[in-house]
């Protein structure tokens, strides 16, 4: 009965934790990428051209319906061998682009739902008061469109955080990668993987709580 050893647990802890910085960086960078790239989707889909709109919708659908793991492999292994446009990317950059683009398609939808939640009357009032295009968005539409999206964005942040271990498959040295490496050195994975689970719980749960708090605060503004 030596499948569990507290000694090995305490050896594994600092080792696995040494990957935490990378995991957090990949998460934050990918999410930032997704937030920005989501804007691009939202903007492209607002261009009033049926064929163009249809094309964008299907590109988004394609990205969303393909497993992120396959996308990561494609970016890391297949992209470099494509002539002209191909280039070799570091594991970190591949992970950020792969996860960022994948989740940007969901985030673009969230932005769209936020914009659509602003009633027709608000657009008409903005026009009647002769707002410029930029001021209409900045002062009337976005301040109303953004708050309802916060809980959804928060949920995707946590979902994405839990997908970050996929990046270990292309060699990003996050906590899962470190746990695997510890396990193969000590011929036992149970402690290291348990630590990974605990770290994810310890970070996801408070994040979800904070998002809930933020949501309540935003809902009671006016």
């Amino acid at each position, binding site marked *: 009965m030596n499948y569990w050893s507290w000694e090995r647990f305490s050896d594994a802890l600092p080792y696995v934790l040494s990957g935490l910085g990378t995991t957090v960086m990949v998460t934050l960078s990918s999410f930032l990428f997704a937030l920005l790239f989501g804007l691009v989707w939202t903007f492209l889909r607002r261009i009033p051209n049926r064929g163009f709109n249809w094309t964008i919708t299907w590109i988004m659908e394609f990205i969303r319906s393909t497993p992120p793991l396959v996308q990561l492999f494609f970016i890391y292994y297949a992209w470099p061998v494509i002539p002209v446009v191909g280039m070799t990317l570091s594991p970190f950059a591949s992970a950020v682009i792969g996860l960022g683009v994948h989740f940007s398609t969901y985030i673009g939808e969230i932005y769209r739902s936020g914009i659509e939640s602003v*009633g027709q*009357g*608000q657009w*008409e*009032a903005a*026009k*009647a*008061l*002769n*707002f*410029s*295009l930029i*001021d209409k968005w900045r*002062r*009337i539409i976005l*301040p*109303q469109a953004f708050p309802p999206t916060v809980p959804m964005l928060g949920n995707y942040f946590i979902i994405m955080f839990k997908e970050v271990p996929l990046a270990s498959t292309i060699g990003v040295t996050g906590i899962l990668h470190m746990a695997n490496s510890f396990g193969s050195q000590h011929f036992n994975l149970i402690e290291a993987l348990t630590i990974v689970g605990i770290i994810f719980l310890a970070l996801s749960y408070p994040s979800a709580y904070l998002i809930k708090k933020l949501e309540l605060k935003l809902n009671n*503004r*006016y």
Partner: protein
Amino acid sequence: MSEPIVQYKDVHKSFGDVKVLKGIDLDIHPAEKVAVIGPSGSGKTTIIRMLMTLEEPTSGDIIVDGTNLWKMEKNGAMVDANEKHLRQVRGDIGMVFQHFNLFPHMTILENCMTAPINVKGEDKKEVEQRSMEMLERVGLGDKFDNYPSQLSGGQKQRVAMARALVMRPKVMLFDEVTSALDPELVGEVLEVIRDIAKNDDMAMVLVTHEMDFALDIADKVLFLDEGVIAEQGSAADVIEHSENPRLREFLSRFRN
């Protein structure tokens, strides 16, 4: 008589296959108070929405203070107006909506101040003072710090009028502004409109179902029926002397 501030010239409007307006010719003079009456679906609201640039006419011209609203000159030819042109002309027009359309994320003072400051680039202090005066005038000076969600429907509509007035339009449009209100709140809104009509020198166009009120304050009454102006004239002409059977029938529904 003075030059008209707004002219409609043979304006048509269709939504898909449905012809809503079938040739509107209309002059609105500065300071004139025009009431538009008629059965539902006769196109009353569409007339003023085209002037506010919320709907584009299918054909015809709308001239605002000598400038064609929906068309502009480019290389010697008349082409569809772009947003820049629309913004220039639209500045003379203000509108109050059936459903108020206040900005829920701003206090009522901010609702009044945002457009003069951000659209017209006016001085903040001056705008704030003017906005407070307007809110006092509609009886809501003490509520300046409230959000729209804290007000009744009648109060919201009074704020919406203050917001439109602070912009100092030359023509103010009222789109069935009491239709969404509880009956006991209609009076307070009509009082404000009456006050504006009596004391302000801008032109006003009211689309309304408040027949007695409209006839009371209007210089000119239009009876719109099936997409055309079936009758127009002073309130007395239209009400007392018209022989139009559709108008007589329409009015009789309000008189019993």
